[in-house]
Protein backbone atom coordinates (compact mmCIF):
# COMPACT_ATOMS: atom_id res chain seq x y z
CA UNK A 1 0.00 0.00 0.00
CA UNK A 2 1.00 3.58 -0.57
CA UNK A 3 2.45 4.84 2.72
CA UNK A 4 1.36 8.01 4.48
CA UNK A 5 4.27 10.43 4.44
CA UNK A 6 5.84 12.25 7.41
CA UNK A 7 7.52 15.48 6.38
CA UNK A 8 9.69 17.68 8.62
CA UNK A 9 9.83 21.29 7.45
CA UNK A 10 13.03 23.31 7.86
CA UNK A 11 13.03 27.10 7.76
CA UNK A 12 16.20 28.35 6.15
CA UNK A 13 17.59 31.88 6.05
CA UNK A 14 20.78 32.76 4.21
CA UNK A 15 21.67 29.09 4.04
CA UNK A 16 21.18 28.37 7.74
CA UNK A 17 18.28 26.79 9.62
CA UNK A 18 16.38 29.32 11.66
CA UNK A 19 14.28 27.62 14.28
CA UNK A 20 16.03 26.15 17.27
CA UNK A 21 16.91 22.53 17.22
CA UNK A 22 17.90 20.42 20.18
CA UNK A 23 19.05 17.15 18.71
CA UNK A 24 21.83 16.11 21.02
CA UNK A 25 23.95 14.49 18.37
CA UNK A 26 24.17 17.38 15.92
CA UNK A 27 27.52 19.03 15.41
CA UNK A 28 25.89 22.14 14.04
CA UNK A 29 22.16 22.62 14.54
CA UNK A 30 22.19 25.52 12.10
CA UNK A 31 23.45 23.42 9.22
CA UNK A 32 20.46 22.41 7.10
CA UNK A 33 22.38 19.62 5.41
CA UNK A 34 23.32 17.94 8.65
CA UNK A 35 19.81 18.35 10.00
CA UNK A 36 18.32 16.96 6.79
CA UNK A 37 20.67 14.00 6.87
CA UNK A 38 19.68 13.33 10.45
CA UNK A 39 15.97 13.36 9.53
CA UNK A 40 16.53 11.04 6.60
CA UNK A 41 18.30 8.58 8.90
CA UNK A 42 15.40 8.80 11.37
CA UNK A 43 12.99 7.73 8.67
CA UNK A 44 11.48 10.98 7.43
CA UNK A 45 9.80 10.29 4.09
CA UNK A 46 10.47 13.65 2.54
CA UNK A 47 11.75 17.08 3.54
CA UNK A 48 10.56 20.61 2.87
CA UNK A 49 12.97 23.54 3.02
CA UNK A 50 11.29 26.88 3.31
CA UNK A 51 13.67 29.66 2.33
CA UNK A 52 12.86 32.91 4.08
CA UNK A 53 15.93 34.75 2.82
CA UNK A 54 14.95 38.33 2.25
CA UNK A 55 17.38 39.54 -0.36
CA UNK A 56 17.71 38.48 -3.95
CA UNK A 57 21.52 38.45 -3.74
CA UNK A 58 21.49 35.75 -1.13
CA UNK A 59 19.35 33.46 -3.28
CA UNK A 60 22.48 31.99 -4.81
CA UNK A 61 23.22 30.58 -1.38
CA UNK A 62 20.02 28.59 -1.73
CA UNK A 63 21.11 26.89 -4.95
CA UNK A 64 24.36 25.87 -3.28
CA UNK A 65 22.39 24.56 -0.32
CA UNK A 66 20.10 22.54 -2.61
CA UNK A 67 23.13 20.95 -4.27
CA UNK A 68 24.64 20.11 -0.90
CA UNK A 69 21.38 18.52 0.21
CA UNK A 70 21.01 16.55 -3.02
CA UNK A 71 24.53 15.20 -2.63
CA UNK A 72 23.89 13.86 0.85
CA UNK A 73 20.22 12.98 1.15
CA UNK A 74 18.58 9.88 -0.30
CA UNK A 75 14.94 10.94 0.09
CA UNK A 76 12.93 13.49 -1.92
CA UNK A 77 12.93 17.14 -0.92
CA UNK A 78 11.00 20.28 -1.79
CA UNK A 79 12.16 23.88 -1.86
CA UNK A 80 9.72 26.72 -1.16
CA UNK A 81 10.05 30.47 -0.91
CA UNK A 82 10.91 33.17 -3.36
CA UNK A 83 10.08 31.28 -6.55
CA UNK A 84 8.51 33.80 -8.88
CA UNK A 85 9.42 32.63 -12.34
CA UNK A 86 10.46 29.63 -14.41
CA UNK A 87 14.16 30.50 -14.12
CA UNK A 88 14.02 30.31 -10.29
CA UNK A 89 12.48 26.84 -10.47
CA UNK A 90 14.84 25.70 -13.21
CA UNK A 91 17.90 26.57 -11.11
CA UNK A 92 16.54 24.59 -8.16
CA UNK A 93 15.60 21.59 -10.31
CA UNK A 94 19.08 21.51 -11.83
CA UNK A 95 20.58 21.68 -8.37
CA UNK A 96 18.72 18.49 -7.44
CA UNK A 97 15.43 19.63 -5.88
CA UNK A 98 12.61 17.14 -6.49
CA UNK A 99 9.79 19.65 -6.19
CA UNK A 100 9.24 23.32 -5.66
CA UNK A 101 6.52 24.91 -3.59
CA UNK A 102 4.89 28.18 -4.54
CA UNK A 103 2.53 30.19 -2.40
CA UNK A 104 2.07 33.95 -2.74
CA UNK A 105 3.61 33.99 -6.22
CA UNK A 106 0.81 31.68 -7.37
CA UNK A 107 -1.85 33.84 -5.75
CA UNK A 108 -0.47 36.96 -7.44
CA UNK A 109 0.05 35.21 -10.77
CA UNK A 110 -2.00 32.00 -11.06
CA UNK A 111 -0.66 31.38 -14.57
CA UNK A 112 2.70 30.62 -12.96
CA UNK A 113 1.25 27.23 -11.96
CA UNK A 114 0.42 26.43 -15.59
CA UNK A 115 3.86 27.55 -16.75
CA UNK A 116 5.72 25.50 -14.15
CA UNK A 117 3.60 22.40 -14.77
CA UNK A 118 4.11 22.69 -18.51
CA UNK A 119 7.86 23.23 -18.16
CA UNK A 120 8.65 20.60 -15.55
CA UNK A 121 5.59 18.35 -15.11
CA UNK A 122 2.84 18.49 -12.52
CA UNK A 123 4.79 16.25 -10.13
CA UNK A 124 7.31 19.10 -9.68
CA UNK A 125 4.79 21.72 -8.56
CA UNK A 126 3.42 21.97 -5.02
CA UNK A 127 1.02 24.80 -4.39
CA UNK A 128 1.18 25.85 -0.76
CA UNK A 129 -1.94 27.47 0.65
CA UNK A 130 -2.18 29.29 3.98
CA UNK A 131 -5.78 29.44 5.08
CA UNK A 132 -7.61 31.19 7.88
CA UNK A 133 -11.22 30.98 8.98
CA UNK A 134 -12.88 34.40 8.61
CA UNK A 135 -16.58 34.89 9.38
CA UNK A 136 -17.60 31.36 8.40
CA UNK A 137 -15.46 31.25 5.28
CA UNK A 138 -12.00 29.88 4.63
CA UNK A 139 -9.87 32.61 3.10
CA UNK A 140 -6.42 32.32 1.54
CA UNK A 141 -3.85 34.40 3.42
CA UNK A 142 -0.35 35.59 2.55
CA UNK A 143 2.73 36.53 4.54
CA UNK A 144 2.38 33.89 7.20
CA UNK A 145 -1.33 34.49 7.64
CA UNK A 146 -1.12 38.24 8.12
CA UNK A 147 -2.62 39.40 4.83
CA UNK A 148 -6.05 38.24 3.71
CA UNK A 149 -6.69 37.79 0.01
CA UNK A 150 -10.03 37.80 -1.81
CA UNK A 151 -9.75 34.09 -2.56
CA UNK A 152 -11.95 31.47 -0.94
CA UNK A 153 -9.63 28.61 -0.04
CA UNK A 154 -11.38 25.59 -1.54
CA UNK A 155 -12.09 27.27 -4.85
CA UNK A 156 -8.47 28.46 -5.03
CA UNK A 157 -7.22 24.91 -4.38
CA UNK A 158 -9.46 23.55 -7.11
CA UNK A 159 -8.22 26.22 -9.47
CA UNK A 160 -4.61 25.35 -8.59
CA UNK A 161 -5.34 21.69 -9.31
CA UNK A 162 -6.88 22.46 -12.68
CA UNK A 163 -3.92 24.67 -13.58
CA UNK A 164 -1.44 21.89 -12.91
CA UNK A 165 -0.58 21.70 -9.22
CA UNK A 166 0.73 18.20 -8.49
CA UNK A 167 0.23 18.48 -4.75
CA UNK A 168 -1.38 20.82 -2.22
CA UNK A 169 0.36 21.82 1.00
CA UNK A 170 -2.43 23.19 3.16
CA UNK A 171 -1.53 25.09 6.32
CA UNK A 172 -4.25 26.16 8.68
CA UNK A 173 -3.06 29.44 10.18
CA UNK A 174 -5.71 29.11 12.90
CA UNK A 175 -4.07 25.87 14.04
CA UNK A 176 -0.43 26.68 13.24
CA UNK A 177 1.60 27.04 16.43
CA UNK A 178 -1.26 25.94 18.70
CA UNK A 179 -0.09 22.33 19.05
CA UNK A 180 -3.78 21.49 19.40
CA UNK A 181 -4.01 19.22 16.36
CA UNK A 182 -4.52 19.61 12.62
CA UNK A 183 -7.62 21.23 11.13
CA UNK A 184 -9.14 17.85 10.38
CA UNK A 185 -12.54 19.13 9.42
CA UNK A 186 -11.34 21.39 6.63
CA UNK A 187 -8.54 19.05 5.56
CA UNK A 188 -11.15 16.36 4.92
CA UNK A 189 -13.25 18.78 2.88
CA UNK A 190 -10.23 19.65 0.75
CA UNK A 191 -8.91 16.10 0.44
CA UNK A 192 -12.32 14.87 -0.71
CA UNK A 193 -12.58 17.66 -3.27
CA UNK A 194 -9.31 17.12 -5.15
CA UNK A 195 -7.60 14.25 -6.95
CA UNK A 196 -4.03 15.25 -6.14
CA UNK A 197 -2.12 14.51 -2.93
CA UNK A 198 -2.77 16.79 0.05
CA UNK A 199 -0.14 17.53 2.71
CA UNK A 200 -1.60 18.60 6.06
CA UNK A 201 0.19 21.31 7.99
CA UNK A 202 -0.40 23.39 11.08
CA UNK A 203 -1.19 22.31 14.61
CA UNK A 204 0.79 19.13 15.26
CA UNK A 205 1.50 18.86 18.97
CA UNK A 206 1.65 15.15 19.73
CA UNK A 207 1.66 11.78 17.99
CA UNK A 208 -2.08 11.27 18.37
CA UNK A 209 -2.63 14.35 16.21
CA UNK A 210 -0.94 12.54 13.31
CA UNK A 211 -3.10 9.45 13.90
CA UNK A 212 -6.17 11.67 13.91
CA UNK A 213 -5.35 13.54 10.72
CA UNK A 214 -4.73 10.35 8.75
CA UNK A 215 -7.75 8.53 10.19
CA UNK A 216 -10.18 11.41 9.91
CA UNK A 217 -9.15 13.02 6.63
CA UNK A 218 -7.18 10.42 4.62
CA UNK A 219 -4.66 13.09 3.53
CA UNK A 220 -1.49 11.75 1.95
CA UNK A 221 1.10 13.37 4.18
CA UNK A 222 1.52 15.42 7.33
CA UNK A 223 4.10 18.15 7.81
CA UNK A 224 5.41 19.68 11.00
CA UNK A 225 8.38 21.70 12.18
CA UNK A 226 8.86 22.45 15.86
CA UNK A 227 7.68 19.13 17.30
CA UNK A 228 10.41 17.46 15.27
CA UNK A 229 13.09 20.14 15.67
CA UNK A 230 12.74 20.25 19.44
CA UNK A 231 12.72 16.47 19.69
CA UNK A 232 9.21 16.41 21.16
CA UNK A 233 8.29 13.78 18.61
CA UNK A 234 10.86 11.35 17.27
CA UNK A 235 10.04 10.07 13.82
CA UNK A 236 10.68 6.36 14.59
CA UNK A 237 8.27 6.60 17.57
CA UNK A 238 5.71 8.37 15.41
CA UNK A 239 5.94 5.75 12.67
CA UNK A 240 5.46 2.98 15.22
CA UNK A 241 2.46 4.75 16.71
CA UNK A 242 0.89 5.12 13.26
CA UNK A 243 1.57 1.48 12.47
CA UNK A 244 -0.06 0.39 15.74
CA UNK A 245 -3.10 2.30 14.55
CA UNK A 246 -3.09 0.42 11.24
CA UNK A 247 -1.94 3.40 9.23
CA UNK A 248 0.40 2.41 6.42
CA UNK A 249 3.88 3.84 6.93
CA UNK A 250 7.39 3.16 5.69
CA UNK A 251 9.51 1.76 8.51
Amino acid at each position, binding site marked *: *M*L*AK*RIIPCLDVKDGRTVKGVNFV*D*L*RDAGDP*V*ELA*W*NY*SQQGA*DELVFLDITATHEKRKTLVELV*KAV*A*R*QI*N*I*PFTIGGGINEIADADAL*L*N*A*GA*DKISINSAAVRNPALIDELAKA*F*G*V*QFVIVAVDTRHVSNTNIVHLNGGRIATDKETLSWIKEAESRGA*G*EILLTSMDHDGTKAGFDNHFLKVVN*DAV*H*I*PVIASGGAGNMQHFVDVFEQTNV*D*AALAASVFHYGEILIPDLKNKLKENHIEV*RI
Partner: protein
Amino acid sequence: MEIKEKQDTEIASSTPANGNANIGIVRYGAGNIFSLTSALDRLDVSYGMIHTEADFEQYDRYIIPGVGHAGAAMNKLEQTGLVPTIKALQKPTLGICVGMQLMTAYSQEGDADLLNIFPNKTLKFKDSDAYKVPHTGWNQVYQEKENLLFTGIPNGAHFYYVHSYYIEYSDAYTLASTDYSLKYSASIWYNNFYGVQFHPEKSGAYGETLLKNFSNL
Protein backbone atom coordinates in the same frame (compact mmCIF):
# COMPACT_ATOMS: atom_id res chain seq x y z
CA MET B 1 27.40 11.36 11.38
CA GLU B 2 29.38 10.74 8.27
CA ILE B 3 28.63 13.51 5.87
CA LYS B 4 31.30 13.50 3.23
CA GLU B 5 32.83 16.70 2.06
CA LYS B 6 32.82 16.52 -1.68
CA GLN B 7 33.76 18.85 -4.45
CA ASP B 8 31.02 19.74 -6.85
CA THR B 9 31.41 17.14 -9.55
CA GLU B 10 28.27 18.29 -11.37
CA ILE B 11 27.73 15.79 -14.14
CA ALA B 12 31.35 15.39 -15.05
CA SER B 13 32.92 11.97 -15.05
CA SER B 14 33.88 10.59 -11.73
CA THR B 15 37.26 8.90 -11.86
CA PRO B 16 37.24 5.28 -10.80
CA ALA B 17 39.51 5.00 -7.80
CA ASN B 18 39.82 1.26 -7.58
CA GLY B 19 38.46 -0.13 -10.81
CA ASN B 20 34.99 -0.86 -9.47
CA ALA B 21 31.92 -0.84 -11.69
CA ASN B 22 31.88 1.89 -14.27
CA ILE B 23 28.45 3.00 -15.35
CA GLY B 24 27.72 4.92 -18.53
CA ILE B 25 24.72 7.20 -18.20
CA VAL B 26 22.94 7.76 -21.50
CA ARG B 27 22.48 11.50 -22.00
CA TYR B 28 19.73 12.54 -24.37
CA GLY B 29 18.35 15.70 -22.81
CA ALA B 30 15.54 14.13 -20.81
CA GLY B 31 15.78 15.37 -17.30
CA ASN B 32 18.14 16.19 -14.53
CA ILE B 33 20.49 13.52 -13.23
CA PHE B 34 22.13 15.34 -10.34
CA SER B 35 20.33 13.17 -7.76
CA LEU B 36 21.35 10.00 -9.60
CA THR B 37 25.02 10.94 -9.87
CA SER B 38 24.99 12.07 -6.24
CA ALA B 39 23.71 8.64 -5.21
CA LEU B 40 26.44 6.94 -7.25
CA ASP B 41 29.01 9.25 -5.63
CA ARG B 42 27.76 8.25 -2.18
CA LEU B 43 28.12 4.60 -3.19
CA ASP B 44 31.59 5.14 -4.63
CA VAL B 45 30.39 3.78 -7.96
CA SER B 46 32.16 5.46 -10.85
CA TYR B 47 30.28 6.71 -13.87
CA GLY B 48 30.54 8.84 -16.96
CA MET B 49 28.30 10.28 -19.64
CA ILE B 50 27.36 8.73 -22.95
CA HIS B 51 26.66 11.15 -25.78
CA THR B 52 27.82 9.18 -28.81
CA GLU B 53 27.96 5.58 -29.98
CA ALA B 54 31.70 5.44 -29.35
CA ASP B 55 31.19 6.33 -25.68
CA PHE B 56 29.49 3.00 -24.94
CA GLU B 57 32.77 1.04 -25.14
CA GLN B 58 34.24 2.81 -22.12
CA TYR B 59 31.71 1.39 -19.68
CA ASP B 60 30.75 -2.03 -18.39
CA ARG B 61 27.09 -1.22 -17.72
CA TYR B 62 24.58 1.49 -18.54
CA ILE B 63 21.78 3.54 -17.01
CA ILE B 64 19.04 5.15 -19.09
CA PRO B 65 17.54 7.86 -16.88
CA GLY B 66 14.46 9.87 -17.70
CA VAL B 67 11.79 12.10 -16.30
CA GLY B 68 8.94 13.89 -17.93
CA HIS B 69 6.95 12.97 -21.03
CA ALA B 70 7.68 9.53 -22.54
CA GLY B 71 6.79 10.50 -26.11
CA ALA B 72 8.96 13.62 -25.93
CA ALA B 73 11.78 11.63 -24.33
CA MET B 74 11.63 9.08 -27.17
CA ASN B 75 11.88 11.88 -29.73
CA LYS B 76 14.97 13.20 -28.00
CA LEU B 77 16.51 9.75 -27.80
CA GLU B 78 15.89 9.19 -31.52
CA GLN B 79 17.58 12.49 -32.31
CA THR B 80 20.78 11.24 -30.66
CA GLY B 81 21.02 8.37 -33.16
CA LEU B 82 21.77 6.00 -30.29
CA VAL B 83 18.62 3.87 -30.59
CA PRO B 84 20.08 0.97 -32.65
CA THR B 85 23.09 0.77 -30.32
CA ILE B 86 20.92 0.75 -27.21
CA LYS B 87 18.71 -2.02 -28.59
CA ALA B 88 21.77 -4.12 -29.31
CA LEU B 89 23.48 -3.64 -25.92
CA GLN B 90 24.84 -6.84 -24.35
CA LYS B 91 25.97 -5.41 -21.01
CA PRO B 92 23.69 -4.81 -18.00
CA THR B 93 21.41 -1.86 -18.74
CA LEU B 94 19.04 -0.22 -16.25
CA GLY B 95 16.20 2.09 -17.25
CA ILE B 96 14.89 4.33 -14.47
CA CYS B 97 11.32 5.73 -14.48
CA VAL B 98 10.69 7.12 -17.98
CA GLY B 99 14.01 5.50 -18.98
CA MET B 100 12.37 2.17 -18.15
CA GLN B 101 9.19 3.05 -19.99
CA LEU B 102 11.24 3.83 -23.11
CA MET B 103 12.30 0.18 -23.21
CA THR B 104 8.69 -0.95 -23.70
CA ALA B 105 6.93 -1.17 -27.06
CA TYR B 106 4.51 1.71 -26.69
CA SER B 107 3.32 4.49 -24.37
CA GLN B 108 -0.08 6.10 -24.19
CA GLU B 109 1.81 9.24 -23.22
CA GLY B 110 2.17 10.92 -26.60
CA ASP B 111 0.79 7.78 -28.36
CA ALA B 112 4.43 6.87 -28.95
CA ASP B 113 6.19 3.80 -30.31
CA LEU B 114 9.22 3.11 -28.14
CA LEU B 115 12.35 0.90 -28.11
CA ASN B 116 10.40 -2.38 -28.01
CA ILE B 117 13.05 -4.22 -26.00
CA PHE B 118 10.09 -5.38 -23.91
CA PRO B 119 6.82 -6.09 -25.80
CA ASN B 120 4.75 -4.53 -22.96
CA LYS B 121 2.79 -1.30 -23.06
CA THR B 122 3.02 1.79 -20.88
CA LEU B 123 -0.47 2.92 -19.90
CA LYS B 124 -2.03 5.77 -17.92
CA PHE B 125 -3.42 5.21 -14.44
CA LYS B 126 -7.15 5.72 -14.28
CA ASP B 127 -7.95 8.64 -12.02
CA SER B 128 -10.30 7.81 -9.15
CA ASP B 129 -11.25 9.05 -5.71
CA ALA B 130 -9.34 6.25 -4.04
CA TYR B 131 -6.22 6.43 -6.21
CA LYS B 132 -4.82 9.85 -6.94
CA VAL B 133 -2.70 10.43 -10.03
CA PRO B 134 0.25 10.97 -10.21
CA HIS B 135 1.02 8.03 -7.95
CA THR B 136 3.22 9.93 -5.51
CA GLY B 137 5.09 8.59 -2.52
CA TRP B 138 6.48 5.43 -1.01
CA ASN B 139 4.85 2.18 -2.07
CA GLN B 140 5.71 -1.45 -1.56
CA VAL B 141 7.64 -3.48 -4.10
CA TYR B 142 7.05 -7.24 -4.27
CA GLN B 143 9.65 -9.42 -5.93
CA GLU B 144 8.08 -11.80 -8.43
CA LYS B 145 11.32 -13.51 -9.42
CA GLU B 146 14.73 -14.20 -7.95
CA ASN B 147 17.28 -11.71 -9.20
CA LEU B 148 20.52 -10.23 -7.91
CA LEU B 149 19.14 -6.73 -8.51
CA PHE B 150 17.07 -7.14 -5.33
CA THR B 151 19.73 -8.83 -3.18
CA GLY B 152 19.45 -7.67 0.43
CA ILE B 153 16.12 -5.92 -0.15
CA PRO B 154 13.16 -7.32 1.83
CA ASN B 155 10.08 -8.32 -0.10
CA GLY B 156 7.55 -5.51 0.29
CA ALA B 157 10.14 -2.79 0.94
CA HIS B 158 8.99 0.75 0.16
CA PHE B 159 10.41 2.68 -2.79
CA TYR B 160 9.70 6.24 -3.89
CA TYR B 161 7.42 6.75 -6.88
CA VAL B 162 6.24 9.74 -8.90
CA HIS B 163 4.46 8.74 -12.09
CA SER B 164 1.17 8.86 -13.95
CA TYR B 165 1.93 6.05 -16.40
CA TYR B 166 2.73 2.44 -15.57
CA ILE B 167 4.00 -0.64 -17.37
CA GLU B 168 1.44 -3.41 -17.49
CA TYR B 169 2.13 -6.53 -15.47
CA SER B 170 3.41 -9.52 -17.40
CA ASP B 171 4.41 -12.99 -16.20
CA ALA B 172 7.27 -13.08 -18.67
CA TYR B 173 8.94 -9.75 -17.91
CA THR B 174 7.79 -8.41 -14.54
CA LEU B 175 10.63 -8.77 -12.04
CA ALA B 176 8.82 -6.96 -9.21
CA SER B 177 5.33 -5.57 -8.83
CA THR B 178 3.51 -2.81 -6.98
CA ASP B 179 -0.21 -2.44 -6.35
CA TYR B 180 -1.80 0.90 -7.05
CA SER B 181 -5.39 0.49 -8.19
CA LEU B 182 -4.00 -2.51 -10.08
CA LYS B 183 -0.88 -4.68 -10.02
CA TYR B 184 1.75 -3.30 -12.38
CA SER B 185 5.45 -3.66 -13.13
CA ALA B 186 7.63 -2.00 -10.49
CA SER B 187 10.59 -3.61 -12.21
CA ILE B 188 11.11 -5.48 -15.47
CA TRP B 189 13.88 -7.82 -16.60
CA TYR B 190 14.88 -9.50 -19.84
CA ASN B 191 18.41 -10.82 -20.41
CA ASN B 192 20.75 -7.89 -19.70
CA PHE B 193 17.94 -5.31 -19.65
CA TYR B 194 16.44 -4.09 -16.37
CA GLY B 195 13.99 -1.36 -15.54
CA VAL B 196 12.62 0.21 -12.36
CA GLN B 197 9.63 2.51 -12.26
CA PHE B 198 10.50 3.95 -8.84
CA HIS B 199 13.44 6.28 -8.18
CA PRO B 200 16.21 4.28 -6.48
CA GLU B 201 18.25 7.47 -6.05
CA LYS B 202 15.44 8.85 -3.85
CA SER B 203 14.39 5.64 -2.13
CA GLY B 204 16.47 5.72 1.02
CA ALA B 205 18.82 2.89 1.96
CA TYR B 206 17.07 0.21 -0.12
CA GLY B 207 17.26 2.39 -3.22
CA GLU B 208 20.98 2.71 -2.71
CA THR B 209 21.21 -1.05 -2.20
CA LEU B 210 19.51 -1.58 -5.56
CA LEU B 211 21.92 0.77 -7.35
CA LYS B 212 24.85 -0.98 -5.66
CA ASN B 213 23.43 -4.34 -6.72
CA PHE B 214 23.17 -3.12 -10.30
CA SER B 215 26.79 -2.01 -10.18
CA ASN B 216 27.74 -5.56 -9.14
CA LEU B 217 25.65 -7.48 -11.71
